[in-house]
């Protein structure tokens, strides 16, 4: 066996290495300066540099369907764009952490370090070409997040959230791992390319152990992206976690995990199991319904957004269903394009909405209610305007980014003849309008008597919100370049 690794392996790993190296700097500084916390801005800058350099390296070296580390990693368009989404949301999360009251502390450098560590885990997930490596990546990402959540300055809820996330996450990991074991046992390999070739024969012969393995693996992923009925941790953890961390979880974790799911479903062999198709379709449908319906009833702003993110997972699952069970050649790459585009859109919108929440949170442990935004349209017109754009985009109003995201997903569903899923999806997006518009109602249409609340400075968080609003409009109107870039990256054409 040739153990030598080519240069290409290191190039693929370069973003991760950069992240690791840069992330250690603030911690090291702290160690060498006698445990004195560096200025938060310095830490933020280092974090940003880490992410930026990783992003630069990713854009430079990723893509083009290359393998590395004995096929443990694959660098393709999917990985490239998922890395971009993950890294960008990481950068914005660091900005928000710098500002946010629950993450500002003497341990800020450690928090940034953990977030960067989590990013490394995510990059592993998106680059992984092997189920066990995916598992390692997921664990890296999750373990960092458990700690990161627990490190909030809030003392009760954040600990509870961290612990719940930890126990349930480990529980789900065990199940996931069991699934890997069964797949390993039945297919003889855990590497995606080999596995994908095995899927067809194994499903055709109705190998039950393999089916259980697939189910368990899907279940483990479903837990991470909060698909019903594995979503129950989501609102609790999103609420308890510091808002910047929530934003990070809601965007980056989801993006990374969905890429892993897509990799799992890159085979046409799944068509041999109709029940599997049906059950995943049902999960998608129920996820949309439960997420949207629960969000309607939710008075807590962050929980509402949490349920909304559950619903968005449901939409994304439509793409996954199409990828796995569509009946035309190359549907998986097509699904990759629309799912990634949706993830990009969703990440931008979600970052914006959580930035808005972060701006309104003034004290540690404050549970922001939806009603608290009353009258904001008058007192803070720019913020409210940006948030309104974000919310309309989440609701899927054209020509904002969210609309085109949904357009792509539902196009895919229709092309692959998943009509009822598409219909269910759009009907759910109508339901979602109800709660997305509620803050707008409160901001603009009610509470003219609301007092003027001083807003935290939070320059970087403002920047995040503002930037996301701008991006939503600009990328909505000019989504063509992004789409064509995505397309050429994923189809491997220039």
């Amino acid at each position, binding site marked *: 066996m040739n153990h030598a690794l080519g240069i290409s392996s290191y190039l693929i790993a370069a973003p991760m290495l950069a992240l690791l190296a840069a992330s250690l700097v603030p911690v090291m500084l702290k160690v060498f300066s006698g445990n004195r916390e560096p200025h938060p801005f310095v830490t933020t800058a280092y974090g940003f540099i880490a992410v930026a350099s990783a992003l630069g390296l990713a854009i430079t070296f990723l893509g083009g369907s290359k393998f590395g580390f004995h096929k443990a990693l694959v660098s393709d368009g999917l990985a490239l764009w998922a890395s971009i989404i993950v890294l960008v949301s990481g950068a914005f999360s660091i900005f928000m952490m710098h500002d946010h009251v629950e993450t500002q502390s003497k341990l800020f450098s*450690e928090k940034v370090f*953990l977030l960067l*560590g989590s990013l490394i*885990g995510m990059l592993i997930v998106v680059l992984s070409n092997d189920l066990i*490596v995916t598992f*390692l990546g997921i664990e*890296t990402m999750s373990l*960092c997040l458990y*700690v990161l959540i627990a490190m909030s300055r809030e003392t009760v809820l954040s600990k509870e959230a961290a612990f719940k996330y930890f126990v349930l996450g480990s529980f789900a990991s065990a199940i996931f791992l069991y699934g890997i074991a069964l797949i390993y046992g039945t297919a003889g390999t855990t590497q995606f390319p080999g596995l994908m070739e095995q899927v067809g024969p194994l499903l055709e012969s109705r190998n039950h152990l393999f089916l*259980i393995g697939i189910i368990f693996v899907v279940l483990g992923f479903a837990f991470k992206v909060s698909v019903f009925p594995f979503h129950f941790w989501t609102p609790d953890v999103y609420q308890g976690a510091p808002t910047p961390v929530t934003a990070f979880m809601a965007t980056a974790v989801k993006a990374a995990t969905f890429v892993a799911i897509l990799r799992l479903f890159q085979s046409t062999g799944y068509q041999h199991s109709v029940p599997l198709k049906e059950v995943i379709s049902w999960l998608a449908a129920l996820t949309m319904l439960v997420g949207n319906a629960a969000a309607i009833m939710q008075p807590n702003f962050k929980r509402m957004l949490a349920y909304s993110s559950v619903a968005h997972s449901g939409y994304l699952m439509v793409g996954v269903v199409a990828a796995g069970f569509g009946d035309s050649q190359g549907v998986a790459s097509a699904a990759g394009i629309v799912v990634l585009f949706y993830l990009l859109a969703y990440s931008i919108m979600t970052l914006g909405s959580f930035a808005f929440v972060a701006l309104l949170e003034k004290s540690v442990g404050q549970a922001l209610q939806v009603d608290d935004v009353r009258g904001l349209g008058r007192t803070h017109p720019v913020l409210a305007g940006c948030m309104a754009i974000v919310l309309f985009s989440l609701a899927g109003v054209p020509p904002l980014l969210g609309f085109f995201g949904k357009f792509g997903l539902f196009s895919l569903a229709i092309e692959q003849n998943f009509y009822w899923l598409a219909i269910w999806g759009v009907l759910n997006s109508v339901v979602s309008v109800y709660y997305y518009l509620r803050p707008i109602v409160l901001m603009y249409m009610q509470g003219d008597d609301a007092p003027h609340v001083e807003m935290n400075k939070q320059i970087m968080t403002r920047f995040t919100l503002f930037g996301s609003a701008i991006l939503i409009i600009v990328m909505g109107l000019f989504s063509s370049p992004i789409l064509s870039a995505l397309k050429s990256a994923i189809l491997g054409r220039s």
Partner: protein
Amino acid sequence: MTLTAQDLLFYILGGLSLASALGVLLMTNPIYSALCLALTMVSLAGLYASMQAWFVAGVQLIVYAGAVMVLFVMVLMLFDLKSEIKAFSRGAVAGFMKLVAVGLMTGAFLAAIYNSADTLLGTSLAAHVDGTVSTKALAQLLFGKYVFAFEAMGVLLLIIAIGAVALSRIEGGTHADE
């Protein structure tokens, strides 16, 4: 249908592991649970060895039954826990459903094993493998095919080490500044 030594070993160690696992579940005193868990791990190590996974068996003994269990016991000692009155979760319905769910899942599992048994490869053990050979092969794998995973493990441990320390220093942590 002769019962070979190998089979006997399986039934003994398997039964032991199952019993001790049940002990983990049923013992109301956490310390006893921990000890039962250690016993399970030891018996599993035996099973690994019986399947000629010598290295893994050794790691199981040292890392798991040794280090990890010590960590658990230490924490338990730190908390100074006694036998708990309410060791199990409340709710008859919920409890019933939990039993049913796990029962069904296991049942489905066993049925699946039964169904797929024909397709499973090599239902009899292969020839004896030398421990050094298998360990070497494992090492080749770890530093060859799985080198990236191996390195990633290292990174993970580093991050977790720093994270765990940081966690102990937060407000209310064991090593908090204030």
